[in-house]
């Protein structure tokens, strides 16, 4: 399958004032990440806070300007486009946010929120816009009585449906969904996940699905990319990555994720240590400070992303030695 979106050697540094005297420093939000999202697939992007997954999602839509690298949509580099061209391109790429409370304008009726993209991108009559808005609401499972109401009149799940309707308005091909179910209760989150899957089928959408939750990503994604401290640690087909992880960080994530299928086992496999600073990331492999397999080479040499199985890559010097499950013998707490 051809890539719809290709992210090439993407780097994003944010300025940070580190020293008291204003010495220049940068937060290395993303460092040299190459990734593709294939047409019609859902690529799950997993990582903890500070991993750079949200920044990567925003760079993929060019909502944040990368420091270097390229973002290709249908093989055309967004970074080299002129303003007008980029604006026309934007209708094909939309975003769904985590917090439907913060991403809707509280002073705008749903009708106005949904009509806004049409005013910007299309010349339609008022009645045409009205018809499109009603249709959008129906697609996301809301009635047209919602049109005259304000965001605060809806529950979290309903607001997320409105956010999805707005993202769908211009019939995009690519949607970045940034933690779309994280703020929702389990039963409501399941409704939204199902809706996203239905819409994908119906409109042949391509998703970049950003989440901290491996169970959710396993459910919805075809492939998964795991990020750690601004770097891609591992990427591959979701079933394979979870069955046979090839990066120690993925193994740690899997072992740390509580799961209802292990009810009552009371086994906590975890590793000591915390996320290092993104202003001064560790030399070599960024995960080495928490990694049980770390050797001198890991500090000296940055591990490149290597393909170890068809479509399955890992950025670990010792990927071949990575145990697929974390046991206390491997990783004492």
């Amino acid at each position, binding site marked *: 399958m051809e890539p719809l979106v290709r992210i090439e050697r993407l780097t994003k540094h944010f300025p940070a004032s580190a020293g008291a005297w204003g010495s220049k420093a940068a937060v290395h939000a993303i460092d040299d990440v190459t990734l593709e999202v294939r047409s019609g697939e859902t690529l799950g992007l997993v990582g903890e806070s500070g991993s750079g997954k949200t920044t990567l999602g925003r760079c993929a839509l060019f909502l944040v300007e990368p420091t270097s690298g390229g973002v290709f949509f249908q093989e055309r580099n967004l970074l080299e486009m002129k303003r007008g061209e980029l604006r026309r391109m934007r209708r094909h790429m939309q975003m769904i946010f985590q917090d439907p409370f913060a991403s809707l304008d509280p002073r705008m009726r749903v009708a106005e929120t949904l009509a806004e993209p049409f005013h910007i991108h299309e010349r339609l009559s008022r009645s045409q816009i009205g018809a499109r808005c009603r249709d959008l609401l129906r697609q996301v499972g809301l009635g047209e009585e919602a049109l005259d109401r304000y965001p605060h009149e809806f529950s979290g799940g309903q607001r997320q449906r409105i956010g999805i309707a707005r993202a769908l308005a211009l019939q995009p091909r690519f949607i970045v969904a940034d933690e779309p179910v994280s703020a929702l209760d389990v039963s409501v989150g399941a409704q939204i996940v199902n809706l996203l899957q239905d819409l994908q089928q119906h409109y042949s959408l391509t998703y970049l699905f950003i989440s901290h939750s491996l169970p959710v990503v396993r459910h919805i994604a075809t492939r998964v990319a795991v990020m750690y401290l601004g770097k891609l640690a591992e990427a591959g087909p979701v079933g394979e990555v979870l069955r046979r992880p090839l990066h120690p960080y993925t193994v740690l994530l899997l072992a740390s994720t509580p799961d209802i299928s292990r009810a*009552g086992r009371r086994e906590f496999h975890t590793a000591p240590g915390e996320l290092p600073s993104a202003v001064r990331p560790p030399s070599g492999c960024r995960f080495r400070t928490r990694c049980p397999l770390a050797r001198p080479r890991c500090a000296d040499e940055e591990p490149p992303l290597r393909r170890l199985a068809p479509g399955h890559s890992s950025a670990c010097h010792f990927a071949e030695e990575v145990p697929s499950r974390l046991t206390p013998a491997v990783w004492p707490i």
Partner: protein
Amino acid sequence: MAPPLLEIRNLTVQFQTARGVLPAVQGLSLSIGRGEILGLVGESGCGKSLTALSIPRLLPPNARIAAGQVLLSENGSGRDLAQLPEHELRSIRGTRISMIFQEPMTALNPVMRVGAQIGEALLAHGLANKREARAAALDMMRQVAIPDAERRIRQYPHQLSGGLRQRVMIAMALICRPSLMIADEPTTALDVTIQAQILALLAELRERLGLALLFISHDLGVVSQIADRVAVMYAGRIVEHGPVREIFAAPAHPYTAGLLRAAPSLGCEPRPRLASIEGLVPSLAELPPGCAFEPRCELRVPECSAAEPELIEVGPGRWARCIRAATKNS
């Protein structure tokens, strides 16, 4: 048999609102034994946090305990916290029962060194002088595995990571050696690798100190991992409770079963679709006449809307508030 450490009997908590009195918690009974971890789960608005806050009587001003008993038994004597005068309750808060919350940053004082905050309760209750309080704080920081405790004791909350802040909260909560800790979503704001560290720490503290925990969470996975017993709440009521393995292996209440089907899991075969629970949680002002879950329940029968079902015993130590659960097991 010795009475449980904490026993809540028929607790009813009401909200006073402009629209009248709303029943936020209705006729709730639960017990926690010494050294036991009880998981209290439910979705937002189900009343789990209010239940927790009503134990040390720290309810918001517009909520009040309308009925029920909160019995704390220690050293052979039992006291009803719901009836205790405020000054007596104050000597129990922090010393016998303590609490930790989801967001340690809002619970910690930003302009006070963490060591002083940890030791503060000892001073407030007159249990130590300043030097002893500092030594106890340092010891407690080591017990909750804060690395480099001698240096950290002089730091301020903003200098610590989220995981370390939660460890500071736990140290504060444990400094007076309470027998019960109420933990309200203690790991929800943390990353999963840090969450696993905190869960491991809580489980270890229970073993080492014989601490009992009321662990409140919306996250079924987390509760399934840490709890001995689980109580599931819906619309202010406990709809099911029992031992953790049994609840997760064979839920007796349709709501619990629905929640488990809706939660994606790494341990089962991939499913094409998640089962969702249709509809919305009813508003407290418009609770249905019979079973609160009836309008959303796939197994409902006409009798479900006639009267609210009682909690019935469906197995040893297992209770469910569902008339279908009764017929299923008899």
